[in-house]
């Protein structure tokens, strides 16, 4: 096989068949807002924990969509529910309700 040299890094493509999306669907049912996120990152940019912890709401939402739940849960545990992300979110997502719901839904094993 000819190596064209394009494979510099291994594929990070996500195989949606490989993880169970039931929890994400449950989250989306309870918090339809989560589907509105456009990953703009305003929330992370305004978060007071930035620079001190790895909390990043944009990432949390992306990670959950990709089934990387443990990482997302760890991040969320740093949140102070201060609500700055709620104020800046251009999509009007009620983050202060979304974040506790994430913990509630994903925590139960």
């Amino acid at each position, binding site marked *: 096989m000819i190596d064209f040299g394009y494979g510099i890094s291994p594929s990070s493509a996500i195989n949606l068949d490989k993880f169970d999306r039931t929890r994400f669907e449950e989250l989306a049912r309870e918090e339809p807002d989560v589907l509105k996120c456009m990953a703009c990152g305003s929330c992370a940019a*305004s978060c*007071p*924990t*930035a*620079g*001190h*912890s790895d909390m990043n709401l944009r990432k949390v939402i992306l990670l959950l969509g990709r089934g990387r739940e443990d990482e997302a849960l*760890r991040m*969320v*545990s*740093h949140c*102070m*529910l*201060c*609500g*700055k992300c*709620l*104020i*800046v979110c251009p999509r*009007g997502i*009620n983050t*202060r*309700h979304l974040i*506790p719901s994430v*913990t*509630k839904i994903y*925590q139960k094993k």
Partner: protein
Amino acid sequence: MKDRFISGYNDFVLPFVIGMSFILIYLAIGIIRVIAQLPAQDRKKFFLSLINPKLWIINLKDIICDVLLHTRIWKRKPLLGYMHSSIAFGWFMLIVLGHIETWMFVPDRLSTFYYPVFFRFFVMETDHTIGGSFFFFLMDFFLLIVLSGVFLAMFKRIRSRIFGMRRTTNNQLPDRIAMYCLWAIFPVRLLAESFTAGIAGGSFLTRPMYWLFSNFLTNTYHILPTWWAYSTLLGTFFVLLPFTRYMHIPTEAFLIVLRNAGIKVSHPRKGYSIAQIYSCSNCGMCIDACPMMGQKKNLRYATVYFNRLLRRRNWARCEESADKCLMCGKCVAVCPVGVDSCNIKRSLRGLKAAPAPADYGYFSTYSLSESATTSPSSAEPAAGQEKILYYAGCMTQLTPVISKAVGTVLDRAGVNWEFMDRDGGICCGRPLILAGRDERAREMIRSNTELIRQSGATVLLLSCPICYKVFRENYDLKGIRIVHYTEYFDELVRLGRITLRNSGEKLVYHDPCELGRGCKVYKEPRRVLGAVGELVEAEKHHDESICCGGSLGSLTLSYEDRKDITMHSLDNLLYASPERIVTACPLCLKTFSPYSPKKVSDFAEVVAQNMN
């Protein structure tokens, strides 16, 4: 005046006696239950308060003002106040005077508790005395007062607007039956006493009625049936009492005693909260007050219905209401009973919140910069030598114009200050407390307290009212003065450390919920703003100011609903057509700015712009 019957008894008193016994037993059990459910330290507080003579005087004063005279309603809505106090105070006087009459004329009958209530049935007039006619006059007079109140109450059901209320509570079946009983009790009493006036005597109300009736009725035939009706109505009312809004009549006095003992809400449906929700008179003043009520669909979240649902333990709907509430505190401020609904809702949130493990280990990475750390000195600082620590709070990070302006003013005044969270800091904890998660907030409180203590500051200056409230209420910072910048700037002006010029601009001041109703700061910002421009008031101001809609208190209110509230609040502020809206909260500033047709500025900004 003497006894008409040797037995001093007639069967018609039975309904009353049964009803009265029922309610007394019910109340006794209720009180014991509430006390038993109080946390141990609160119970101790309660018992200690009972042996404190000073508190007795306060309790007595509060009970007379709030339960009998309803002074709080008078202040807001005089006609409504008259309606409530005429029924409550009039009824109370009828009971008291009935006992005095009995005690004066037939003292040995005092031991039966029905006798004073049906006094005029059991006595007959033997001679006219000044004393006797004086009491009869008083009895007729207070009956007239009560009747006027009852008449107004009937009228209120038809036209609540006359009383300055747009909406009034919708009643439920037991409430309605009890209400009709209450309406009927006093007219029936008037009839019964009038028919009896030929035997027992009467005064300016009952005697003419007696003469009137005697023209076409045989009064003696009607004596017993009307007394039966009167007794039955009273009995029915008392039996229904625990299942209706009228339970507030006996509960409110108990609530006052508990409140004055310094007890706070600790569980949404136990102990103190029971006294709170049963004290709700369903007057409905909280409906018009609530900023959410601009939209009809939110009507069901009104505090009065929340209280009602909580009484019935309808947890699901209570939770929904509790999560919606903005915690703006307006319903508490206007409530004539002072039902502390915000704290009940908050504790309900806490009770129902799913456990969420928090990891705040990273707090240890926040530290004070070198320059800010000094060992705390024990010596009292000389005047003007205080060391000020300014904590802007996370919300202010989104409105840097505030912290910049605060810095400008402080520098101009030449005070010695440090900026605690110039590069961001730990949240004050109030948002978590509002969400009912006090446990988690405790970590923030601990870390911040440590940082503040380390700094050696003598004054903690805050610009965000949300922070201000939590620092005042939940932090233990003894020895450090906690002050909001509106108060502090007012002080600087009065001490002459900054001087202001009057630009003549027409300003309106918005009372932020947490600063006004939350911390009762109203006059300082107004005094300063009055010196820099022409200060006008909004339509609703001080403790009736309307939440900006951005409150972190609500957990579920949607973006669109919030916008609705913001628009309504802006309308209210623009009432006197000011040129600029001034607020003293970063969240209000942020919430108003995008929608306001007039410029919105922060208090510090306006001060900084108008300093000489």
